[in-house]
């Protein structure tokens, strides 16, 4: 029959006594391991009562506590810096690095909006002509796209249809000639006002006006054309373009050089497949997910007394839980001619509560030292200082 020793009152740590051996060669860890055993067992009642644990159980708890501390710390650092870390090489020595935030990933994230708005982004816009045919109002752009080589079905997404006449600011205008916007009369406007030959600006009887005045004039001309005189429009349903008016009717001027003599419309479109292909970038040996940030286990000797104190308490909670499970494997323990019930339920309940409280306090502590909170606190301090200074009579100069 076996005799399994329990806590004898002292211990002697040797590398290899912990399950994983993460910190076994750390002199500070080795030094603290036996002290932690003494601390834990005394907190649990030794030598007044026996502790049904062995030193290796406590070493395992100690190692787990250090690892949990490191995990919490590094998880916090990853959360704090992930925008900056994502895409960085995995070879960086992150534990010895100070991370300064940058906007790189924010700009990357915002490219999607630029792509949709047509102001940049990472998805190219493509362009194709829609040859209009006299008396044909509907044009299937999917068919047209496949004729242009975009054979994947239902892949195009029309972003813009060029359906209007040339901008009004490029035409000869009558209504807005005069100072600051041309020389006077339609001919003058065509020469150097807002006309097609010249740009904005120079006029024979030129009076310098504020730039916003010119901009308002331009917008007014455009809006005037759109509301009062435009007869060009379109509808789009399931990539079938319906143009108004029907080409060849209503006095449309045939575009010279077009195949059918009616003219071309132009559309800009995006390939849906481009969105995916441009959004997914293979990045070997780069940080791609939070689990890829190359944090390792913490160096125990670098953990300060605040952290070590937390580790000791967490070790105690783990040991308490462990002892509860040992004592609670059987609901009752047989002794000669009787049975006894031990305090396993109390131990386990207390241990869980303590572990949760310790984790909560650690996370709260880390959160309090986050970049956001530090800046917030600094702002508050600054405000409080200003409030206090406001109470000082103004006659006193503080420089």
């Amino acid at each position, binding site marked *: *029959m*076996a*005799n*399994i*020793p*329990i*806590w*004898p*009152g002292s211990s002697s740590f040797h590398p290899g006594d912990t399950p994983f051996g993460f910190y076994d060669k750390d002199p500070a860890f080795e030094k603290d391991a036996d002290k932690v055993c003494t601390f834990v067992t005394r907190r649990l009642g030794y030598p007044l*009562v*026996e502790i*049904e644990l062995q030193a290796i159980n406590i070493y395992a708890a100690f190692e787990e506590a250090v690892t949990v501390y490191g995990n919490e710390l590094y998880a916090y650092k990853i959360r704090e810096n992930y925008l900056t870390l994502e895409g960085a090489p995995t070879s960086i020595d992150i534990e010895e690095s100070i991370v300064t935030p940058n906007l790189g990933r924010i700009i990357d994230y915002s490219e999607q909006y630029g792509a949709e708005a047509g102001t940049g982004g990472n998805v190219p816009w493509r362009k194709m002509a829609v040859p209009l045919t006299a008396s044909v109002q509907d044009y299937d752009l999917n068919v047209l796209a496949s004729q242009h080589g975009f054979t994947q079905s239902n892949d195009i997404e029309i972003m813009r249809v060029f359906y209007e006449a040339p901008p009004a600011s490029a035409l000869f205008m009558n209504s807005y000639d005069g100072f600051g916007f041309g020389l006077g009369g339609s001919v003058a406007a065509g020469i150097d006002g807002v006309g097609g030959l010249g740009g904005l600006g120079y006029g024979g009887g030129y009076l310098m006006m504020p730039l916003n005045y010119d901009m308002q004039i331009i917008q007014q001309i455009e809006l005037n054309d759109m509301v009062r005189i435009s007869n060009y429009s379109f509808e789009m349903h399931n990539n079938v373009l319906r143009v108004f008016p029907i080409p060849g009717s209503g006095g449309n001027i045939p575009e010279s050089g077009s195949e059918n003599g009616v003219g071309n419309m132009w559309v800009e479109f995006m390939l849906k497949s481009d969105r995916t292909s441009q959004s997914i970038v293979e990045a070997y040996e780069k940080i791609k997910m939070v689990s890829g940030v190359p944090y390792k286990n913490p160096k125990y000797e670098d953990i300060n007394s605040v952290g070590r104190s937390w580790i000791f308490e967490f070790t105690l909670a783990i040991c308490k839980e462990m002892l509860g499970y*040992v004592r609670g*494997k*059987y609901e009752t*323990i*047989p*002794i*000669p*001619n*009787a049975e*006894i019930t*031990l305090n396993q339920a109390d131990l386990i309940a207390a241990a869980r509560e303590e572990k949760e409280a310790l984790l909560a306090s650690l996370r709260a502590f880390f959160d309090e030292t986050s970049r956001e909170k530090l800046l917030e606190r600094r702002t508050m301090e600054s405000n409080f200082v200003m409030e206090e200074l406001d109470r000082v009579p103004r006659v006193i100069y503080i420089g």
Partner: protein
Amino acid sequence: MALFGTQRDVSLFRHMSRELMADIITEQCAYYKYKLEETKINLYGEAAEEKFYIGPVLLNTLVERTDNVYPETDLGTDYDKEVQFSFLRDDLLGAGEDFNKFDNKGNSYTGLPGTGYGANLVPQVGDIIMYNEGYYEVHETISNQYFVGKNPDYPNNVNTINKTDGPGDLSAYGSNISIICKAHYVQADKLGLTQARFQ
């Protein structure tokens, strides 16, 4: 096939029982083992003259006392009392057993008089237990408190699993926890264990 009640668990219970009986409750008695071979018997097998005992051995025990009774006899008022002594069976086994050679801390008992276990003693009817200056003769022994219902002394079947934790049969499972001795009061002068003389 057995899954629960390995000797590892039994070892834990032994630690707990010993802590409870030795360090927390600490009820003790002196056990005098009847020495059959030196006791002379008469024609009827009765030990009419002297009885011989081995011991005493100091043991930790759990005691259940009954009230004193004073029966009226032909000779007058008598005195009687029944006491039940519960022993951890492992304490009574041989001192050479590993669980009796070492204390809970893994230290050897050798050289620590009074702290060792392993009385090498089998309680039997007729043995004498001294408790609180009184002598009690054992008239019944009970040994049927089995953990998980198994007495490892009877490994009737070959165990097919968990072979690494024992010899591979059921002797590595269960435990015979206790030996209970029911005893009644006997007068000291009848035993001759101590120099007692009543005028």
